[in-house]
């Protein structure tokens, strides 16, 4: 039985990732990107691909490093600590998990390109302000051997810069999942200026024609094809968010040990000590939930829903607590743009909504636990 502790390889991987990211993609890099209006960093993605990160879930047969979900979580957690911007979640985690369900040449060739950093993806899911992936109004009407897509998707993460888009649409046969170029004719990206300074867009589909080959899986089976990818993404996002919570927390405890008021360090006030200690407990529980989700996704992915939802719900909640307490315990400096806490706070809020918020996942947990 795989244990809920890091293996030696995972520890090495996290050390390597930590070293690389704190040099190449720390919070200061995100600040730079925000100030210059960039929202993605293709050169960084190339370096990550060279290290095998883009292929973390790509099978070896398609030239990936195939390290598995738990390893992907190790990477995501380090990215969370540094607020690193990359297409890791959409492309390396979700699109790869989705495409590896298929063994045809087209899927294999796409997976190969993902592994070398030559192809990025975005998932176009939500049509309302809240995550509800099976509520689909975007239509797919068959025409010839293909389809015509009409409708809108909102809050598509990586939606401006991704090479390709995975989109769920409603056809006569039921939900269908399509894989199409983001430059397809009739497809418009309206870039969103996000609080976390990352790439997101609303997508408008206006008579977008796709061939029959763009359909992944059987007509009507779109959601089944999508589900493993969604769960992989939710768990990896939980890992990223946990890393974020940990980093914000260590900024806070460092400050508690250094800031003096009334002639003593504020960390010796029990009112603050106990809140910090409580937060640490919350982070520990969340970390366990993320480790557990990683193990289950690697071992018994068809039974992962409960583990994934516990992880995503907990991570969402813990990160919000961590940044809110972080700002509060820093006092005035916590409110300044010059200090990094605000970046953590904004990313935590976006990550809380993406792929299902606390209520969405707690609701799933309740359902699976029989109430």
């Amino acid at each position, binding site marked *: 039985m795989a244990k809920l502790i890091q293996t030696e390889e995972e520890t090495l991987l996290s050390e390597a990732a930590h070293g690389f990211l704190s040099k190449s993609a720390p919070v200061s890099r995100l600040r730079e990107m925000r100030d210059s209006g960039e929202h993605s960093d293709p050169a960084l993605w190339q370096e990550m691909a060279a290290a095998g990160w883009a292929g973390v879930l790509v099978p070896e047969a398609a030239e990936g490093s195939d390290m598995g979900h738990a390893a992907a979580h190790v990477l995501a957690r380090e990215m969370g600590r540094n607020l690193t911007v990359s297409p890791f979640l959409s492309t390396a985690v979700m699109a790869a998990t989705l495409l590896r369900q298929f063994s045809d040449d087209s899927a294999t060739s796409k997976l190969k390109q993902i592994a070398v950093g030559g192809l990025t993806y975005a998932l176009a899911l939500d049509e309302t302000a809240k995550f509800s992936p099976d509520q689909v109004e975007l239509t797919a009407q068959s025409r010839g051997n293909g389809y015509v897509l009409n409708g809108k998707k909102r809050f598509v993460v990586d939606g401006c810069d991704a090479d390709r888009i995975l989109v769920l649409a409603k056809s006569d046969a039921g939900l269908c999942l399509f894989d199409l170029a983001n430059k397809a004719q009739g497809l418009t990206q309206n870039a969103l200026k996000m609080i976390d300074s990352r790439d997101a867009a609303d997508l408008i589909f206006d008579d977008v024609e796709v061939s029959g080959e763009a359909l992944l899986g059987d007509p009507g089976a779109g959601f089944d094809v999508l589900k493993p990818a969604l769960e992989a993404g939710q768990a990896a996002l939980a890992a990223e968010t946990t890393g974020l919570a940990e980093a914000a927390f260590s900024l806070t405890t460092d400050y508690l040990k250094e800031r003096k008021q009334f002639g003593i360090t504020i960390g010796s006030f029990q009112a603050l000590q106990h809140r910090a200690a409580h937060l640490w407990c919350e982070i520990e529980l969340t970390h366990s*939930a993320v480790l557990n989700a990683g193990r289950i996704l690697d071992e018994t992915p068809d039974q992962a829903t409960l*583990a994934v939802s516990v992880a995503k719900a907990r991570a969402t909640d813990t990160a919000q607590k961590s940044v809110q307490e972080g700002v509060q315990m820093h006092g005035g400096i916590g409110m300044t743009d010059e200090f990094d806490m605000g970046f953590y706070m904004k990313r935590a809020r976006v990550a809380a909504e993406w792929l299902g918020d606390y209520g969405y996942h*707690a609701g799933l947990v309740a359902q699976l636990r029989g109430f």
Partner: protein
Amino acid sequence: MGEVNAGRDHAEFRREVREWLETNCPPEMRDGAAGESSICWGGTTWVFTCDEQKIWLDRCAARGFTVPTWPKAYGGAGLSRDEDKILKQEMQAIGARSPLDSFGIWMLGPALLKFGTEEQKLHYLPPIARGEIRWCQGYSEPGAGSDLAGVQTHAADQGETWLVNGQKIWTSYADRADWIFALLRTNRDAKKHLGISFVLMDMRSPGITTRPIQLISGASPFCETFFENVEVPKTQVVGTIDRGWDVAKYLLTHEREMISNGGNAMGSGRALGAVLTESETGQSDPVLRGDAMRAEVDSLAMAMTLERYKDQAEGGQGVGDASAMLKYMGTELNKTRLELIMATDGADALTWGDTPASSWLRTKANSIEGGTSEVMLSIISRRILNLPG
């Protein structure tokens, strides 16, 4: 349990265990461990609630299953942690009761395994495993609660023996226990922590008396315990004389884990989901439902954390100060859970008797016994986060 990483190995062992349970666990002992009244505490004064309770205890003891991970020489089954996990899963699957719950198993046993001499282990551990000797814990005193190192009950050096005088308080089940493990001041000149010894005493020794104290739940497991010129052989000291604090602390980490596990029977009973589904209002009250969801998410994460810490401990990294976290989060969650059950059952829960109220009242002690929540948070801030004290 599908929720915590279950794995697929050890099929052979699982089959063996399943067969053994099928033949050996009496049907009467498969009621999902019901309430506090179904627990078997053992000891010389124990009255078995039915024949099957004794049969089940004896069979488990013979197989080493009352203390599955202890070495065989001391009455255990020498199981690895994975095997132990499988045993627990299989027992849970048929709703088997725990054959024996005891302070000997949860607290004293681990401390003896670590600090006892070989002679002490062979003498004390097997009877604990067989449920023959019931133990109580003599730590707290009227003036030494959260400030445990302040104990004053004194042991005067008489050469081969100690002469013990003083008073303990909140000693659970002292009136029904055969033996007590206690913290005694053996050196009044040394610094607080450095003059304490960890001593085992026979409760029938002349000079020991107990007096029960009633709890808010109506039960009276609590006692005041008095020592008047009690003679204790020095061979009954565990660990080094005056250094009993090390043993006491080690034991407390086990006590805290046990309490956080709901192992003290206060956590048992119906799952929250089942309570909600069966009730008239549970499903439709949106606030209750929301609170229950939150509690469920947290309980699952807590269960995963217990797994993770056990995995860590098995790899040689002890849980150490993090047991304060398990204790704090586990007991606060347990209180929340019982609050929700009370809210769900409404008026039905409010009468005395076999109602959730007795468990609810009992859980209020969770954040006090074994070190209060405030003390746990202070341990975390000082020892784990290294905040200035």
